[in-house]
């Protein structure tokens, strides 16, 4: 990573651009998105979106390299000093999240081309890519900003564009799914802004670092406690924390395949990042999280979600919905890491953020490709798919093994870290919960595997019939990453560890 940063500095004009990278990360996709309206053409706007997201990915890599080399980056918008101006701060935690979302965004686009052409009507395709870039902008903005209100703005940008993206799904039920998400998402955002308003009332500041220093003085007031609760619930809605997850299964199941891949791997992750940032940076100086029962509540909610999500997933016949419920379960692992409020637990949560993005991306891509070829992803229609689409099914198998948490896949690394973290706290029952819930994953993954490999293909199904190469290559890349980072978990765990340290920081009230 650091080597990549030094490479970037050797490029022409790098020195002039380099200080402004944090803002360019946001502004490039934001300003490039409307150009799609001028282009109007499906292919051209796809090409444009691809170029832009890959540039964003490149910037994210440089930023991560810079953070790892020289630590925190602070960027003041319009050179207005904080706390009056808006400030962007990039440390190991959000640099990692930036890489995750831009990488998934970049790798999804080559995949999206064929899939979107099939699932979205031609005249609307340019709108699809427009919204895609706006959504990416929103997610990047949430991640980079160090201003609590600015975060709300980006939250709305990403939410509104994702409502549109979901509603573009071929099935008419995509509309109701999107509408439901709109209602729930708006509720979440409203809760969040109420929380921010209450904080502003007590401190007169919106800058996160500033809030972190001001809040401890007033942390005994009921207003601040209410603010904290509003923020946690609001973001909990966006990240699909267990009882607040009801928007997710339908939204994922009926959205166009490419959107499902993108949102499943990024949107909830960014919301989790926002929760991390608020809990550990903004409220880090107070003992509201560990002092009250909120951390305990998160752990209970996470454990229930892990089991409930996996359990419901077992009974799904639509593989896309099955994976969606599996996401509810997997989000539980990340929330669990937050709830532990220890450096090791956070590391586990953050590394799972990355790992889950990779494996769920691969899984949804595989399922999307099956949808592309077969036209349905109900279990009955996937009989013998392992013979008809060997590569796609193999990718699904790798992702599925990772969901279970078998070694040599990223899922194992996450589980290892989380179990270790809970045992370090002496919570053996939490450790047992983590392992037992992954046993449920065996059941839902293996239902698909059996149908795919051990059932004979239906009569009349053509022989080998793979998805186009443009869809295969991205999913192979993600499957390879699932294995690569499953073997070399050291790298990701170290970066996640740095991210956890950056979040816990010296001002944090969490246990070391």
């Amino acid at each position, binding site marked *: 990573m650091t080597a990549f940063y030094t490479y970037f500095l050797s490029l022409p004009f790098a020195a002039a651009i380099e200080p402004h990278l944090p803002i360019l990360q946001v502004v490039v996709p934001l300003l490039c998105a409307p150009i799609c309206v001028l282009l109007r053409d499906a292919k051209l706007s796809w090409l444009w979106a691809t170029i832009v997201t890959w540039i964003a990915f490149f910037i994210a890599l440089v930023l991560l390299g810079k953070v790892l080399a020289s630590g925190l980056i602070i960027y003041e918008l319009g050179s207005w000093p904080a706390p009056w101006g808006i400030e962007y701060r990039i440390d190991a935690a959000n640099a990692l999240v930036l890489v995750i979302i831009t990488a998934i965004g970049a790798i999804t686009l080559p995949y999206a081309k064929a899939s979107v052409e099939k699932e979205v009507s031609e005249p609307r395709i340019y709108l699809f890519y427009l919204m895609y870039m706006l959504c990416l902008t929103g997610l990047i903005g949430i991640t980079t900003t160090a201003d609590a209100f600015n975060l709300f703005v980006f939250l709305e940008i990403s939410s509104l564009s994702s409502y549109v993206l979901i509603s573009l799904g071929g099935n008419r039920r995509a509309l109701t799914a999107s509408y439901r998400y709109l209602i729930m998402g708006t509720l979440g955002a409203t809760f969040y802004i109420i929380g921010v308003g209450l904080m502003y009332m007590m401190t007169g500041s919106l800058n996160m670092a500033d809030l972190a220093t001001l809040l401890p003085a007033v942390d005994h007031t009921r207003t601040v406690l209410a603010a904290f609760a509003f923020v946690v619930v609001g973001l909990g809605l966006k990240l699909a924390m267990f009882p607040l997850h009801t928007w997710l299964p339908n939204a994922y199941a009926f959205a166009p395949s490419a959107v499902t891949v993108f949102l499943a791997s990024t949107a909830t992750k960014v919301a989790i990042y926002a929760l991390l940032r608020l809990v550990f940076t903004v409220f880090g100086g107070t003992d509201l999280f560990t002092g009250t029962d909120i951390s305990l509540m998160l752990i209970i909610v996470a454990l229930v979600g892990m089991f409930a999500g996996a359990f419901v997933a077992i009974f799904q016949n639509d593989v896309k919905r099955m994976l969606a419920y599996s996401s509810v379960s997997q989000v539980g692992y990340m929330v669990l890491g937050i709830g532990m409020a220890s450096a090791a637990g956070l590391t586990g949560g953050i590394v799972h953020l990355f790992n889950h993005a990779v494996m769920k991306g691969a899984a949804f891509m595989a399922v999307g490709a099956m949808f592309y070829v077969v036209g349905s992803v109900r279990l009955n229609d996937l009989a013998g798919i392992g013979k008809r689409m060997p590569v796609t099914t193999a990718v699904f198998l790798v992702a599925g093994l990772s969901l*279970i948490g078998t*070694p040599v896949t990223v899922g194992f690394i996450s589980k*290892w870290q989380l179990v*270790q973290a809970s*045992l370090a706290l002496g919570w053996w029952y939490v450790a047992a919960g983590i392992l037992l819930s992954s046993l449920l994953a065996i059941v839902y993954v293996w239902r698909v595997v*059996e149908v795919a490999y*051990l059932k004979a293909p239906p009569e009349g199904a053509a022989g080998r019939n793979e998805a186009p190469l443009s869809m295969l290559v991205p999913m192979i890349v993600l499957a390879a990453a699932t294995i690569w980072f499953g073997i070399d978990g050291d790298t990701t765990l170290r970066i996640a560890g740095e991210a956890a340290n950056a979040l816990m920081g010296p001002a944090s009230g969490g246990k070391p």
Partner: protein
Amino acid sequence: MTGLLAGWAPGDALVLALVIPVIGAFLVLALGRWENARDGASLLTAACLFYVVAQFYPIVAAGGRPDIVLFDMVPGLSIRLTLEPLGMIFAGIASFLWIVTTLYAIGYMRGHHEENQTRFFFFFAIAIASAIGVALAGNMLTLFVFYEVLSVSTFPLVAHHGTEEAKRSGRIYLGILLSTSIGFLLFGMIWTWQIAGTLDFVRGGVFNAEQAQGPMIAVLLALYAFGIGKAALMPFHRWLPAAMVAPTPVSALLHAVAVVKAGVFSVLKVVVYIFGIDLLKLAPGTDFLLYVAAFTIIAASIVAMRQDNLKLRLAYSTVSQLSYIVLGAMLASDIAALGSAMHIVMHAFGKITLFFCAGAIIVFAHKTDISDMKGLGHRMPVTFFCFFLASMSLIGLPPMGGMWSKWYIALGAAETHQLVFVAVLMVSSLLNLAYLMPVVLYGFFGKESIQSEEGADNDHDDHEHHHAPPNHPLLRHMTFGREGISDASFMCLLPIVLTATGCVLLFFYADRIRIFLTPVFGG
């Protein structure tokens, strides 16, 4: 290193041993279209692997411990290969018996007209690679990784036929193996890592005497013993009979040697190098595992007696025999643990022979039930004689290798004054006699009823009706030029005779194994 590997660092050669079967697997895949070339590749790979493994023998015997750290998987924990005497023995038998089984498998799969043979040989090679990985593992994490790969890569072999029954069995197989390993073994491992701060295999164990006082050691040991589901300790043994739905070469090499031995080998490794035999003597509450193992020995033997299907009977016999090894390991005595290590070898040779014979009977006489095998010994004398020899070894009678391992385990039980386990071993020998000898007796002395003979012929005709008979001389019935004899083909008989001879030779060379293992268990 010596021989063709001259110039190789021993550590690199360890990696080579791991990579060879993987290369072989992809070679099989690439040559899938040409049957002979594909099977030739399998055989060649097996031979290369055994050659490489054999090159390590003098090094390890001389006290060398080839070692290589590959990379860190999680901070502070690496994937590491280390070869020590126990691993050498396991790698040695797995790679040697792979050659023999490949020979047999070619004869069996072609004789039985199995489908998807390329897939079969591919996953077979991957499974062997993981078994070798288990043998070479230098710490618990590495062992766990290969252990899990072994579980997953053998699933397609178990569910090979794709029938409803195969699917159900595959579910039980993977379900039990994955859930025990993730639910218990991984848990115990991470707990160990928390307490001891290391997962390396250290002679004498990784815990200090203070940690050994509490009940924790007993809980941890139970997590390991049940978590290593491949050791088939009751009540987590159901996967092994379920796996019998697989083609016989799989049952023979994987479910009599590679997979189950990976299980008991792991138990032995954990006892010797994670807990340490001396610590086990001190730790309170570990006794109950001895009773679990003893119960498994007896109960599985009794269940075996009630099975009419020969493969199922052998499977339950394996469950019982595996618990000998667990029992020996848990007795907290060096001699018993030595007996356990030896039993890995003895049982491997004995049980693989029995399975080879069972497979030969399926392919060449189309019989699966023992009650149908009356008088079959006259038609297949070599097969049945080898079955007899291997049975003797399993029962523990001289002059067969199986005697020594049982002897040492019983000696260990006596040494630690736990005579009840000596009694268990003796009773179980009688039970072994009771469920293995009837097969031989039926075969040689049973009256072949005319009806069943006709039935068999009809069956045979049906068979030939559907498939052209294999016309290669190596794949045809062997008659030895005598009327009334139609034994298995040369390709099947050769492996049977080889492993049965092995059972006899092991009686005479058992002491070599004991001396080889001296650095582990003392003199």
